[in-house]
């Protein structure tokens, strides 16, 4: 009843209300999109930081692995276990002919 009367008395009123509602909706969407974008940027920032932290951890682990494999660390432990470097007298060098003979033996004797 009232609306009908308003429309009758002010023909632009409806259009103005629609425009206002449209502007409010558009503003709402805009605010939502911008807020969402900002939160996404923060989320992306967090992920990037996490990735950097993981990279740093990988770097640290590589350094640690290299240090653990250092001869200066391994050798004392091997010596503790009773292992020794062979003296030059203990190293027997096999010539090509020796190796060929060994291959023959492995293959079931010379043919």
């Amino acid at each position, binding site marked *: 009843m009232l609306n009908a009367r308003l429309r009758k008395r002010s023909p632009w*009123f409806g259009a103005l209300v629609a425009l206002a509602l449209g502007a409010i909706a558009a503003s709402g969407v805009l605010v939502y999109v911008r807020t969402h974008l900002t939160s996404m940027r923060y989320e992306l*920032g967090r992920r990037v930081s996490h990735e950097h932290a993981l990279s*740093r951890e990988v*770097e640290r682990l590589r350094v640690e692995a290299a240090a653990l494999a250092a001869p200066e660390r*391994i050798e004392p432990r091997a010596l503790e276990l009773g292992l020794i*470097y062979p003296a*030059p007298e203990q190293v027997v*060098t096999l010539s*090509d002919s020796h190796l060929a003979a060994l291959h023959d033996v492995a293959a079931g004797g010379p043919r």
Partner: protein
Amino acid sequence: MSAVRRTRRRRSAGLRPVRLTVVACAGLLGFAALLGRAVQLQTLDAEWLATRAERQGATTLELEPLRAELRDRSGRPLAVSASVESVAASPRLIADRRAAARALAKPLRMPAKELERRLAQGASFVWLQRWVTPAAAERVRALELRGIHLHSERRRFYPNGSLGGPLLGFADRDGRGLSGVELLFDRELRGAGAELRVNRDGGGRVLPTATSAPETRAGQPITLALDLELQHFAEKALAESLRKTGARHATLVALDPRTGEILALAESPSFDPNRFWEGDSAAYRARAFVDTFEPGSTFKPFSIAVALEAGVTRPEELFDCEGGRFRIGRRTIRDYHPHDLLTVSDILRLSSNIGTAKISERLGARRLVDGVRRFGFGRSTGSSFPGEVPGSLREIREKQAVERANLSFGQGITVTPLQLVTAMAVFANDGVRVTPRLTRAAADTPAVAGERVLSVRTARIVLEMMRRVVEDGTGKAAALPHVAVAGKTGTAQKVKDGVYSQRDYFASFVGIVPVVNPRLVIGVFIDEPRGIHTGGMVAAPVFREVAGYAVDRLGIGTGVPGRAAAAPARPPRLETRESGAGEGAG
């Protein structure tokens, strides 16, 4: 009553549209104003505002790629980089500096007074501790102290400690190579960084930008020719020798004569590049490249080779060694042990100064100097190592008989250890001189490519002579039980205050293993050994120990690739006491 109500309702109904219209118009005007302002901010003032925002929140991030790895010939890391954190402070932002210092003292393991002193400087920025451990960084972060920051930095780690320290050199806190291989390959290892403009929010957090990060060029890993295990063994042997002889310093160079690859370059004492700022700068020197010495008798094979090549003598020709004393001009030359008649071969085997001087007399000064220069003496080896020195080889006139004689047995000339080993490799390479190289040669590198210095025949004759030095001469202590070795000893008096010292010697041995199809040239140099000081007694045993290990490790003489060439790398082979033939067994 009802008529009055009706009249009021009619009036009220008449006013409502007017009020609503006014309110709606006011609202619309408000919206219009807001929209107008938004349009102004987003379009008209956008540029000005963006500039202002950038001034306030934008910052430049320097994207620096990690310094690339240095690796040994099997790919094991010798130098690696990683991000570490450093603790800094903005003292002006700290209300209670004493309390902050007390809180930080424990995680940083620093005296609270020292921290307080640094915080008292009143500067806007001060480092409290660089390169802290991850655990310490976490503890500092947990304190949440205002004005205390953690900065991510790059650090160079040398996981093998002092192993190969002088050769590798070090990179400083800013990741720049300052010495050794780190300096030589600095550009390749560093790569190229880039800059990225980013925005920070009010809390200082970096917000990702719409533009993608610019490309950085990663550094290129460098694979050295060095064999980590052989290097370790060599350094251990040198350290033990230093302990036994009381010498000042010792150097060992192991070279593959076919490719020129430097398989080991050991110095003792060494230094730990992880803590380069604590070491004595003299310890940084890779003496094999930058220190020179008079080679003494290790130089004799070169003089004799030049004479044989020139055809002025033959291996079996006899020379009178004058019973150990021979006068040239005003100088008397002496032999360590007196000899009479010796063949050229025996002159080398027994290391006769007089015999070598007499051979050089036949050759003449000019031909001697020109001949030994072709071995690479008096010029850089071409290794490109920073600070490498060429040594000195002076011109000698024909009339200068004393200088010519001195040169023939290694006096009046200075060489670097690497120069001497590279020159000795000529005999191992059938007369061809290779350039020593620090990086691993590519698989398709032709074996023995270089400048011909001697004929194949002369090279093999001298090699055979040097085999006799080890078999039955001054170098017997270098002999290996199952592999033939050639080599030459040297015991040079050091020049102190312009005269030859009677107390300070430079003992050396340079050997080739095996004699047939040589695979390794090893030079051992011991500076100022105390007590027993001859090269044959001091340096040759170190050669024997290291060459014995290398024979096993490199598969020398087996005709199959050694373990050092195999990938992936494995730790050194160790045998149990039970499985070996027993220590000292022959």
